[in-house]
C-alpha cells in the first residue's frame, strides 16, 4: 500500500486493479483488431482513416495506456505495483504475443532474447516514463485536493520519466538505432552461436 494513499479509500482488487487493467487492454485489443482487419473491407478511404486512428493510435496507446490506467488505479487506492501492472497491461499482452510468434521461428532461448530487442525495450521504457508522469500528476492533484501527500517531486518518478528519453536516445537516436542493433546482435552471437 502506498504511503500516499492513506487518505484514499482502498477499493476492492477488481475495482482498483482489474478494472483499469482490463479497460486499457480492451481498448488496445479493439484498436489492434480493427486495424489488422480493416483492409479486408476493400474501402481505401476507411482503411486509411482506420490506419491512423487504430494503427498509429494502437501503437501509441501501448505507451500511453498509463494515462488512463494509472490514475484510475491510483485514486482507487491501488498500490504502486498494482498501478504499474495495470498500466503495463497492453505492453505485456503485446510483448507476450510477439515473443510467442518468435518462438514459432526461433528456439525458446532465442525467443526470450528476441523479447529484449530494441523495440520492446523502447516500448517498455516509454510506458514506464509515462507512468512516472502520471504519478507526479496524481500526487499533484491529490495534494491540491488536500490529500496527505508528501513531496510531489521524488527521485523515483523523475527517474522513471527520464528512462524514456534516455532509452529513446540509446535505442533509436544513437546512430539511427544501428549502433544498439549491432551491439544486440553481438550479444546474440555470444549467446547462441
Amino acid at each position, binding site marked *: 500500500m502506498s504511503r500516499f494513499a492513506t487518505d484514499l479509500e482502498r477499493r476492492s482488487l477488481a475495482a482498483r486493479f482489474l478494472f483499469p487493467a482490463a479497460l486499457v487492454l480492451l481498448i488496445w485489443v479493439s484498436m489492434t483488431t480493427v486495424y489488422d482487419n480493416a483492409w479486408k473491407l476493400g474501402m481505401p478511404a476507411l482503411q486509411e482513416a482506420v490506419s491512423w486512428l487504430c494503427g498509429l493510435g494502437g*501503437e501509441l496507446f501501448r505507451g500511453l495506456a498509463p494515462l488512463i490506467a494509472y490514475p484510475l488505479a491510483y485514486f482507487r487506492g491501488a498500490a504502486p505495483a498494482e498501478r504499474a501492472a495495470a498500466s503495463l497491461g497492453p505492453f505485456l499482452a503485446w510483448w507476450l504475443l510477439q515473443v510467442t510468434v*518468435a518462438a514459432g521461428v*526461433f528456439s525458446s532461448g532465442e525467443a526470450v532474447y528476441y523479447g529484449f530487442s530494441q523495440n520492446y525495450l523502447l516500448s517498455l521504457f516509454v510506458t514506464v516514463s509515462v507512468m512516472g508522469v502520471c504519478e507526479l500528476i496524481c500526487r499533484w492533484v491529490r495534494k491540491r485536493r488536500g490529500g496527505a501527500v508528501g513531496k510531489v517531486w521524488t527521485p523515483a518518478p523523475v527517474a522513471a520519466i527520464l528512462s524514456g528519453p534516455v532509452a529513446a536516445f540509446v535505442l533509436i537516436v544513437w546512430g539511427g538505432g544501428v549502433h544498439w542493433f549491432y551491439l544486440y546482435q553481438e550479444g546474440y552471437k555470444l549467446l547462441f552461436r
Partner: protein
Amino acid sequence: MPLVHFGVEPREDANLLPLLLWGATESVPCGGENLEWNAAGEAGGGRGRRLNRRRSRRWCVNMPQRTLCRWVRNAESVRVLCPVACFVAAGVFGAICLLSPLRAWSGEDKPPNIIFILTDDHRWDALGILGHPVVQTPTLDRLCRDGVRFENAFVTTSLCSPSRASILTGQYAHTHGVKNNLTPWKNENVTFLELLKQAGYDTAFIGKWHMPGALPDLRGVDRFISFTAQGGQGQYFHCPLIVDGRETPSRKPYITEELTDYALEFISRERENPFCLVLSHKAVHHQFQPPPERAGIYRDKDLPLPAEADTWISMAPDLLYCGLIGPLERTYRNYMETLYATDLEIGRIVESLQEEGIAGETVVIYFADNGFLLGEHRLMDKRWPYEESIRVPCIIYDPRRKGAGGRTAEQMVLNIDLAPTMLEMAGLPVPAGMEGRSMLAYLQGDGAPGRRAWLYEYFRDFPYRVPDMEAVRTERYKYVEYRGRKADELFDLAKDPGEKRNIIRSPEGRIVLPELKAELEALRKGDGT
C-alpha cells in the same frame, strides 16, 4: 602487350639449365601449385608469374634427379646439352603460351570488359521503362533499350549476404555456406573474379561486400574497396572505406557517388588486358537515404501503394531494425529518390565507356541482390518468397551482339547464373561446382529453352521472424514449404500474380501439389530442371 612473363630469377649458385628444365618438366599451365603470383603489379602487362625461388632450390637438393643436376654442372655436358635443352624448353614454353589462358589477347579474340553493377533491394518493377508511375531510371532504361532485359530474373535467397555470395560463386546458399547475414564467408569459396583473374583479366571489387566476419583476403582481385561500417551495410553518408586493406576516409559525402568515383578510376586505367569490375552499391538498401539534391523530388507524386497496405504498415515490430518506422509514403518516396540518384551515378559509368573509347568492347550487367516488399502482403522488407521480394531487375548490355537491343528475354534466370554467364563471356569453361547456368544463349533471342523450375531457400536470420523455408517456383506455380507453424502456401501465378489466394487446399491445388512437391524434392537433391 601480353601478360605472360615468366620472370625466372637466376640462381647465383647454380647453372641456369636445371631451372629451365624444372620449368619445362614441372610447371603446369594454370596449375597454380608450382607457380606463385607476383602480385606487385596492378594494371598493365607487367604482371606475370614468378617461379618460387625457394622451391627451385629445394628441387635441386631433394628431387630424385639429383644426379642430373650434378651432370649438367659438368661443363662438357653443358656444351652438348645446352642447345637441345634450350630447344626443348622453348617448345614447352610455346606450348604453355598456347594452352594457358594467360595469353596475349589479339584484337578479335580478346574477351570483353565486364562491368557488373549490383544494387541492393531493387525490386524488379521499379524501372521507368516498365511504366513505373514514380521513379525515373533513365540510365537503366537506356541499357534496356540497347541491351536485353530479363523479365523473369530472381534470387535464390532474398537476403543480402547469401544472395551476394550466390552471385559471386554461382552457387546456392546451402552450397557456399553463407546462409544468412550471420554466417561467415568461407575463404575456400571460388568467385568468378578469381577465375577471370587467372584468365588474365584485371579485376576489381568496389563496394558493398557485407558478409559476416572481417573483410576477406579475396583472391583474384587487383582492387578491393569495401566498408565494414554498420555491420558491413555501410552508411549513406561519410562512410569510411577500406581501400586494398587500408582504412580510408570518404572523399565524397554520399556513398554511391564515392563508389562510382573509385569505379571510374579503375575503368580509366591504361591497360592491355580486359577488365572485370564489380561495382556493388549500398544503394538502394534501407534506410533509403537519397543525396540532399534528390531528396524530395517525388514529394508530390501519387504513389501506387498496394491495396492491402496503409500508412502505418511500417509499424510492424521487426521494422524498427530496418529503420523504416514512419509513414509508408515517406519510405516509398525515399526509396524511389535513392534509386533515381543511383541510376544517375550508373549513368556516369556508362558515359565513361564512350569517353574511354571502350564502349564497343564492354559488357554492362545490372542486377540486384534482392527485391523489396513495399506494403504488399502487408509486409515491408525482403526474405519472404513473394514476387516483390525475390524478383529483381536484370539487364545485359553487350555491344557486340548487334540486333539484340531492346529485347526482353522471358526465360527464368537466377542470381546463381551470373557467374557462369560472365565466365562464358570471357571464353572460360564453367566449373562443375557452379550450380547456375550461363544466360548467354538467351541473349540471342532464338528461343533457347530456359529452366522449368528452380529452388528458393531462406534460412532464419535473427531477429527477423521469418521462418526457414524452401520453395519451388515454376513458370506458373509457386509452392512454399515453411518450417515451424506457418502454413505452407501454393499460388497460381497465372491467375493470381499478386499471390493473394493460397490454393493449397483447393481442388486445383490438390491436383498440382504432388508434382510440385516432387519437383521441390528433386531440386533439393540437386536434380533441378
